[in-house]
Each structure stands twice: as C-alpha cells, then as structure tokens.
C-alpha cells in the first residue's frame, strides 16, 4: 500500500427503472440494477445495447427520462458529474494532450482547490498506484497506449472517488497489454475495494474481471449474475449465445416432463433442461457447450447420442477442436480437452457423439432472432 493514506468511502449504486431515449431510440428501456458496495460490476453487451448509456447516466452526463439513480440512499438525478464523487476512465482515455502526465492528474485537485502542498504527494501516490512513477513530465503523446491508460486510471483515482467508472478502457490496446492491464485493474480494485462499474463488449474480459455481470441487449438487462451463473445457467438464449461458445440447434418440442424436454432436431431426438416455458409442438432451440459434447472414445454415460461427420479438426495444444456435421444445417463444435489420451479423428470420418441431458438447455425459440451471433455486432 502507498505511503499516502487513501480514504475510500464505499458506495452502493442503485438504478430504478431508468429510461433514456435519444430521439426515437430507447437506449435504456427501464433498467434496474443494484451494484453492491465495493463490488466489481460489469455491464456487458454488444455495441448499441445501452451499456455505455447506462454508465453515462450513472456518471451524470445524461439525465434519465424516467426512473432514478441512487448513490447509497441519495437520489442523484440532476446532480452534476463533478458532485457525484465519481472517477471515470474513457474508452479513448481523454487525456488532455496539452498537459503533462502530472498536470493531467493534478488538474482535478486544482479544480477542487486542494492545497498545493497536498497536490504533489497525492499525484505521486496515484501515479505510483498505477506504476507510472518517473513519467510525470511526459505528455500523453509520448506515452504508449498502455501507459496512457494507466494515467487515465490515476487521474480518475486521485480524487478518491466513491465509484470508479470504466468505459471499455482496454478496447484500444493490443492483446498482450490488454491481458496484463486486465489483471492490474482487478488487483487495484481489490486493494482499494472501490465500487467499480465496468463497461465492455468482451465477454471474456467480463468473466475474468467481475464479481457480477449484467448482460444487456436492446436497452434491457437480460440477466444479472456471477460469471459462473451466466456461463452455466444462462437465463435466455441471447445470454447462452453471448457468453462463451454454445452450439445452438433448433427443433420442435416433442415432450416436456419434470423440467426436462425432448426436442426433435435434425440431429435426432435431443434432451435437455427446460429454461422458460415450453409446450409440446413449440419451436425451441437446444444449447450445448463444446466441452460438454463427448466423442465415442471418451464415452461415459450419455443420455443423448447420435452420429456426425468430422468436417474440420484443429489442434490447439491444450485441446483438440472438431467441427462436425450432424444432420442438414447442423454444425457442431466439440472441444476435447485432453489431446494426449484422445485418438485423433481425421476429417471425413463419422463419429459417435453424446452428451448428458443435464448439460444441455432448451430455450423457447421466440428469442431466435439472437441466433445469429453477428447480429449484435452489426446493430
């Protein structure tokens, strides 16, 4: 911990039925969230889903058209950003290019009329926090992308904010720097235990960083949960598709009993856990993750089995990935996680495939518009 004593007031953030419209578009269509004290909370969704708008409403850059934002028990509607006790890091960092690193970080303290004797140690402490000592006199143009990002974090933290807001802070960095900064941000947040709200479209980033995640689409929150919740128990087809990789196979419900359903698919009769409400005869979609599909070699007790043809085999070191054709229009991805004890199946061969019914989920097809994973990106 730094020599300078950080005084954090941990704050809960609550949104109640917030609606925000831009002309005719409803960017937030009634968003309710409670972000707990000291929590790392991520707003996740494709571009245009309303996550950045939500962050900007929390920051106070936008006033909600309906609903309310609370910090603790204090309503925040109409309170300007500067009076909310937030620190914000923008996607492009928004460092002022005409100021040095020191001036950038110190600017907020000057505005708040912090005594000048206090400014230098606080700037120093903030820069040390992000590992940037010694670069005080550089200008942003002389820094790498990763360094700029750290300056932006230091600038946000130096004011001892109650809530830290991060808007896709890693999206402009290359993969290696991104991975390193990701863990630094998480460590920093855990050291400081500051309530942090993080916006990203990268589901992997969200899973790695967050205590809890809210998945958003079309201005609505679809599901709030821990990374494990979202991955293992997606509440909607969209979440199942958006978080991690899922094989989605459409079909017609043959039978529903005890929370399980049988689905007639082009790959045969499949069984899985019902999510939502389903009736026999209804259109539905089965979701099964690549690691839950088992090829005949590693056969265990499978509730569902069928045959498929290998189209593509990819060796990835820690796993072997197959692309299978299991009936007209049904392409499945299978990950075999232990290549050493696995007999490599070349393309063109037929294999037996199986899975446990409890590892598959069956969703109503009315959300089928989300089946196309690219759709979100296009919107």
């Amino acid at each position, binding site marked *: 911990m730094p020599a300078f004593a950080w005084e954090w007031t941990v704050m809960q953030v609550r949104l109640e039925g917030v609606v925000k419209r831009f002309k005719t578009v409803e960017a937030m269509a009634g968003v309710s969230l409670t972000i707990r004290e000291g929590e790392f909370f991520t707003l996740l969704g494709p571009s245009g889903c309303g996550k950045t708008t939500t962050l900007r409403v929390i920051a106070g850059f936008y006033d909600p058209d309906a609903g309310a934002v609370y910090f603790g028990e204090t309503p925040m509607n109409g309170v300007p950003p500067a009076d909310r006790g*937030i620190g914000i890091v923008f996607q492009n960092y928004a460092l002022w*290019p005409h100021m040095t690193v020191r001036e950038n970080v110190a600017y907020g303290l000057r505005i708040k009329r912090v005594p000048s004797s206090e400014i230098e140690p606080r700037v120093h402490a903030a820069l040390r926090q992000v590992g940037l000592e010694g670069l005080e006199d550089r200008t942003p143009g002389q820094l790498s992308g990763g360094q700029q990002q750290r300056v932006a974090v230091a600038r946000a933290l130096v*004011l001892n904010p109650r809530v830290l807001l991060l808007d896709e802070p890693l999206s402009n960095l290359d993969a290696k720097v991104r991975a390193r900064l990701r863990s630094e941000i998480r460590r920093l947040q855990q050291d400081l235990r500051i309530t942090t709200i993080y916006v990203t479209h990268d589901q992997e980033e969200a899973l790695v960083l967050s205590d809890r995640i809210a998945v958003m689409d079309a201005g609505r929150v679809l599901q709030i949960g821990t990374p494990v919740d979202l991955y293992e128990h997606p509440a909607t087809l969209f979440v199942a598709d958006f978080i991690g990789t899922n094989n989605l196979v459409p079909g017609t419900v043959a039978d529903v009993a005890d929370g399980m359903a049988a689905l007639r698919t082009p790959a045969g009769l499949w069984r899985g856990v019902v999510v939502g409400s389903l009736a026999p005869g209804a259109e539905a979609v089965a979701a099964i993750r690549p690691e839950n599909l088992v090829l005949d070699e590693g056969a265990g007790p499978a509730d569902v089995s069928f045959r498929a043809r290998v189209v593509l085999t990819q060796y990835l070191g820690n796993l072997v990935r197959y692309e299978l054709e299991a009936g007209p229009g049904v392409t499945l991805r299978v990950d075999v996680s232990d290549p050493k004890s696995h007999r490599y199946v070349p393309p063109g061969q037929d294999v037996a495939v199986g899975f446990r019914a409890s590892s598959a989920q069956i969703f109503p097809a009315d959300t089928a518009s989300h089946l196309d994973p690219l759709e979100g990106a296009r919107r």
Partner: protein
Amino acid sequence: MTPPAVAAASAPAVTRRVRVPALVWASPIYLFLALFILFPLYRLFVDAVTTEGGQFTLAYVADFLRDPFYRQALVNSLILSFGTVVGCIAVGLLAAFLLVRYDFWGRSTFGYLTMLPIIMPPLVGIMGLVFVLGRAGTVNVLLMDYLGLRRPINFIYGWHGVLLAMVMHYFPLITLNLVDGLSKLDASLEEAAEAMGSRGLRKMRDIVLPLVTPGFVSGATLVFILAFADFATPLVVGLQNLIASQAYLNIVQFVDRRLFKMGIVIGALMAIMAIIFLVVAQRIVTQREYAVLSYRPVERQPLRGAARFLAPLFFIVVLTIAFMPYLGVMLAAFGRAWSLTPFPTSFTLRHLDAVLHLTPIYVINTIRWSAAAVAIILAVGVPLGWILARSNLPGRGAMDSIVTLVLALPGTAIGIAYIRGFHFPLLGIILSRVWIIMPLVLAVRRMPYTVRATFASLLGMHRSMEESAASVGASGLRIFKDITMPQIWRGVLAGALFSLMFVMQEAAATILVFLPGWETMTIGIFTYYTSGTFGQAAALGFVLILLCAGTLYAAYHLTGARMGGLFGSGGG
C-alpha cells in the same frame, strides 16, 4: 501466405522504374519555384540594399528607418493589423462557438452565410460599404431625411472605418479555422474535465482553447498578414499613412527615383515581416498540434433563455453589415444617376452594358489571365502536392516552406519583386513586357490552395492502394492515372476552384505588374472608382461577385463542408 512474396519480388523493379525519372520530371517544378518565386524575391531584397550602380548600401534602409513618416506608417500598420485581429477574434470566436456547440434558430443558414464575406473581393467590399455607409450613402441619407440629422455620421472614413471593413471581411477566416478545430475535439476530453468540476469559462480556458490553438493561431496570423498587406481599403476611405499604402503609392509614381526606391525597401520589409510572423506562428502551431482523433463529437446543445434570441440577433447584425457591400454594389451597378437619395430613383442596365459590351476588356482579361493562371497552377501545383505527400525527393521541406510563404507574402511585395526581377532580359526576353507575366504572378500567388488540397487529398488516401497497384505491375504514371487521380480529383478540383476565386479577386500584385491593355476587372474597378465613374466600378464589381460566388459554390459542392483547413497559414 503468398501476397508478401509477390510484393517482395516486384518491389525492386517498381522502385527502379519510378525513382530515376522522378527527379527528371520533377526538375521543371524545382525550376519553376526557383525562377518565379525565389528569384524575384531575391531581386527584391538585393534591390533594397544596392545602389542603381549595383553597389551594396544600407543607405536606403537607413533612410527609411530615419524617416519619422515611415516609422509612423509602420506603427500605424501594426496597430491596425493587431486591432483587426482582435476584432476578428471577438466576432469569429463567438460565431464559431455558437455554430459548433449550440442549436438555435437559423443556425445552419447562418453557418453558410458566414462564408459570405469571403466571396467579396476586398476592393469591391470597401467600395460597396462606401455606397451604403459613406457620407452620401444610403444610411446617412435615411438618417438625414427621416431623423432630421443635420450632418452625415462618419461611419467609415478613418481608422474605425478601415477596422470595421477589415473585421467584417476577415472574421470568417477565424471562424472557419475554429469551426474546423472545434468539431475535431472529442467530447470525452471535455467530459473528463466536467467530471472533475471544470465548467464554463474555466473549462474553456484550461481545456478547449489550448486544444484549438493551432487553428486559432493559423487564422489569426493570416488575418494579421492580410490586414497588414491591404493597401486598397485604407486608400478608399482616405488613409494613406500605412506601410502597404505607401509601398503602392511609391511604386506607381514614376517621377521620384528616391520614392521608388523607398517603395522597394518597404516591399522587402513587408516580405521579411510576413516571413517573421509566419515562422513565429508555425512554431506555435507545431508545438500545439496534437493528433487527437474524434470518436464522438460534442453534442450540440439547444440555447435557453435570452441566449435563444441573442444568438440569431448576433448573426443577423454581423451578416447585415457583411451584406451591406453587396447591397451597395447592386444598387450602384443598376442605379441611374444615384445621388442624395437613400436608394436609386430609377434603374438601368447601362453600367452593366458598358462593362460587358462597350469596354469588355476587363472581363475578357480577367477570364484570359485566370484561365491561364489555373492551367499553370494545375500543371505545377498538383505535381508539387504529390511531391510533398508521396515522394522522397530532396528539398521537400524547403518546398513546403515556400508554398506556405507565398500564401503569407503581401501581394504588393510580390508585385514589386516581379517588377524588379523580370525587368531585365532573361534569355533575350524581358518578361515584364510579355503578357504571360500576368497569369504567372496570379498563379504563383494563389497556387498554395491547390497544392494544399492535393496534399491533403493524398494524405487522406492510403498508400497501400497505390502499392497494391504497383504490386500487380502498374507503372508510376499509370498508377497516378488509374488509382490516385480518381480518388483525389474532387479535392484537387476544389483546391483549384479556390485558387481560381482568389485569382479573380487579386488586385495587389497585378495592379503593380500590368501594362496598358492587360487590365483585369479589379484594376478596372480601382480605375473607375478613383476616377469617379462609380456606376461602371459597381457593375464590374457585381460581375466579379457573381463569378466568385459561382466558383465558391462549385468548390463547396465538391468538398462538402470542410474547407477551414484551406485557409490556415499553418499545418499542411
């Protein structure tokens, strides 16, 4: 992967084909710059410090510096230019902020109309202003007739008049540069400041203004240099003790050889001062230029309360004054025997007929010289822009400086330099007695717009497009014709149209260089006006405005809206 292998295989062949001829075909460009820009300037400076017999002497410079009249004129010019800059900043800054940041009644219309004063050739502008605001102009006659004023109000004769005319004419240069700079600012830069409590004027001072400094300084420098070099506006409203006016008056009189020499010294001095201003401005601009990409422009906010009415009112007042010269020129061009009434009592096409049919020489000459000048500009300016943007030919930095310098050099200085430079036989030709000197001086003076437009268009086009053409075996010229030209022609043409517009407006250099029979419309206006034939002067002005407006309209259509960069003195 195969593509890199292909590129690697053909790259040496392509480089060989292109590089050797590059210097060869570029040599006429070097020669042009040396002969028609550097040489006359060199002659101007040499003449200022040599006697008639060719002896080096500082006597003339000392004469100039000792003469209290000239010293006063220099001080006057500096004060006037500074005042013009201050005035232009006040009007231009407010206009730019309102246009970019706020929404109010008539905003986009006002945005277009702000360009209005630029179409007006300066000479025509001040003449039109006299018709409306002069002693017997529309406003004074109205005041005397209806409000019982005994004596006319002096709106424009004197310092305040020059200042008013210049501010109204030049403020759009500040506005255009600032609009450009402001719309490039990313919203998050300001939001980051707001999140810390930096608002209003504080935010403006600490964040916004420092970030638009380059555009701001470019615009202000250009205004300063233009105001410093303008000799016609002060002369029309009766001010002579300014440095530019003295240069002009001393050169056009052919009686006193000492005065003539003073004219040369002043011309050289003005050139040096322009260079100094430019260097200082460039230094500020390069120090403060940041590559900030805008992800999200700042949203326009609707104005509330009194500001809702004050903003349109501000534009209406400014644009009314800016529009007055147009009104004056129109009335005088079509009025029959207009005197002592607020508006002409009857209208006639006689003046227009006079300048279009009876004495069409001015219009014909302007069209002739302009066409030839634009041909020269395209022939030299486009290759020059290409050299600056794409080649690694030697001397690019110097060429870039020359282009920028020409934009800043007072027309009077270039005119004097041409008179002195081409007064002697060169390869058996005394160039100053051949008509080509007119399009030459026009082309040299207005070429920078085309060079910059070409340069900017080329920068906006990724090199890989040309490289991929080279990788399939296209030769240099072929690439330029098939790949480069189709993508940049719009920008180049817009630049050429800007050059054309300013060529048609040019008066300062040509009025010194022309021989009888070569008179352009601007010279015609000056001649008619100073000899009291206001109707013909106004009719010529009217035709010139139409030509300029048509040219600007075409340029505007080709480029969309972003033209601020073309007017800056920095960057590029």
